[in-house]
């Protein structure tokens, strides 16, 4: 009896798994991809914004048939207190380019499309199959996976762990740890449906133009967190996420936070009359460079969220996932084409290539940011937003108070809340973490 053996098994059909499977299959490798959902995308949750460049590197003509919602022409950053927002808006006609830079997408639809490309490239995609454990030989080399289907081990030269932030296989095998509560954010999100023309009118958009709002402040009630609103063609993705450690400490209910965000006077009119069709929750890796686990070993590599490859400062996740999946696929194909075995030594090529890419360079740049935000969340997400709102209102409201008195009052409020030393210290620490 012959036992079928694959060159590679990819666990998971999200961004990183699809990129890895596509890259290897299109280079002629015999690839099996396992997905526990009914269809690719049925277990995946994201905001979601797609960065064109990283997908273009993998599928150059993706714009021809990928399900894209809107291309983004405007980005708003809001600092919020309970009744106000102080914002910076950036809008440019430059984004109305022939090959736009960023799009909103709906993951369940996008992942189905990406998976069709993976199949067309020659990979076998097996859905409704939960991989339960890695299979190891006596020397500890990964030789395949166990699944919840009958039939024993499925064998492969190498397993690509694209199993997401909450992946089981790598942690069960001891290759990496379950993320710490301070290294992951829990985000909750709703899909609000509105007619296309209503969305266009409310956000000043035409055609397939889109707008993004990202908001921080008292909406996270002193926890380290971020709210977001993304315009899709006929819907709005609205969500908020905070560190799991902060949720556990404050015992805030995530959906109560979401309800309060929806009810904020700056958000409420943007959603008025919408029909809600889905409520989702998902963890987001926030640990940054210092949380990246061992990336490869004998017979395995780990990619995407499972490897904590997420740039929280720039809110970039899926493009790091796609890029790490592509690079892992390229590295494996190179090892294979040289006729070498998938040992730890040979698979270290993946890490060497990833280190040279923007993925690790960007994460290294912000390596101190997660700890700074985590330990100062009350100042950054409660005190400063309130002070900023007071200062802006003080500046704008005309009430006969001499301007010099207004300025003094604003300065005094900042000094009283954080002290001169505290203000300087916060600024310096933020600058250092950003540098």
């Amino acid at each position, binding site marked *: 009896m012959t036992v079928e053996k694959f060159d590679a098994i990819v666990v998971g059909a999200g961004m990183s798994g699809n990129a890895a499977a596509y890259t290897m299959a299109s280079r002629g490798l015999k690839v099996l991809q396992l997905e*526990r*959902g*009914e269809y690719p*995308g*049925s*277990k*995946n*949750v*994201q905001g*979601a914004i797609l960065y064109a460049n990283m997908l273009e590197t993998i599928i150059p003509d993706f714009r021809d048939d990928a399900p894209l919602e809107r291309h983004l022409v405007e980005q708003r950053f809001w600092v919020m207190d309970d009744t106000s927002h102080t914002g910076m808006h950036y809008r440019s006609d430059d984004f109305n380019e022939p090959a736009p830079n960023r799009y909103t997408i*709906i*993951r*369940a*639809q996008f*992942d189905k499309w990406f998976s069709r490309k993976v199949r067309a490239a020659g990979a076998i995609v097996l*859905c*409704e*199959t*939960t991989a*339960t454990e890695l299979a190891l030989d006596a020397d500890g080399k990964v030789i395949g996976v166990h*699944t*919840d*289907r009958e039939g024993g081990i499925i064998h492969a030269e190498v397993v690509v762990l694209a199993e997401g*932030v*909450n992946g*089981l296989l790598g942690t069960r095998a001891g290759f990496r740890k*379950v*993320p*710490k*509560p301070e290294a*992951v954010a*829990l985000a*909750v999100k*709703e*899909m609000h449906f509105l007619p296309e023309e209503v969305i266009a009118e409310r956000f000043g958009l035409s055609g397939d133009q889109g707008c993004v709002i990202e908001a921080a402040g008292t909406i996270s009630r002193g926890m380290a967190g971020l709210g977001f609103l993304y315009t899709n063609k006929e*819907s709005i993705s609205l969500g908020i996420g905070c560190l*799991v450690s902060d*949720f*556990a400490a404050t*015992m*805030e*209910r*995530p*959906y*109560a936070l979401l*309800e309060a965000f929806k009810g904020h006077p700056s958000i409420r009119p943007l959603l008025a009359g919408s029909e*809600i*069709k*889905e*409520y*989702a*929750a*998902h*963890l987001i890796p926030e640990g940054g460079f210092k949380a990246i686990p061992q990336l490869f070993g004998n017979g395995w590599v780990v990619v995407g969220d499972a490897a904590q490859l997420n740039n929280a400062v720039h809110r970039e996740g899926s493009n790091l996932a796609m890029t790490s999946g592509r690079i892992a696929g390229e590295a494996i194909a190179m090892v294979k084409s040289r006729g070498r075995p998938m040992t730890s030594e040979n698979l270290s090529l993946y890490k060497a290539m990833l280190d040279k890419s923007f993925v690790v360079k960007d994460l290294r740049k912000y390596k101190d940011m997660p700890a700074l935000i985590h330990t100062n969340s009350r100042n950054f997400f409660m005190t400063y937003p309130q002070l900023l709102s007071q200062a802006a209102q003080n500046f704008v409201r005309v009430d006969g108070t001499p301007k010099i008195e207004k300025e003094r009052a604003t300065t005094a409020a900042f000094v009283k809340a954080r002290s001169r030393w505290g203000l300087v210290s916060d600024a310096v620490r933020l600058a250092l973490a950003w540098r």
Partner: protein
Amino acid sequence: MTTSLVRIEDKLYQNRYLVDTGRPHIKVRQHQSPSSNLLALTLVCPANCYEVNEDGEVEITADGCMECGTCRVLCEESGDIDWSYPRGGFGVLFKFG
């Protein structure tokens, strides 16, 4: 509670699930009094799967679970819960994600 004017049941009702009846993918270990993290789950779980029962124990009804992993991150290491994914095809099925 005044914090949640909207009932979580109404939110979860929007979602599509294929429940694996009689085979919950998460189990709470028997305990005398719940740990602080286990108790936190009664508020922090975004699907409100965890509740304190009459005996003061935290119990789980995993039917509405969105498989986010928050409870795993908070309670697996201490042994408070046993965490797995549902069998292939079962559990939450996002239409949009």
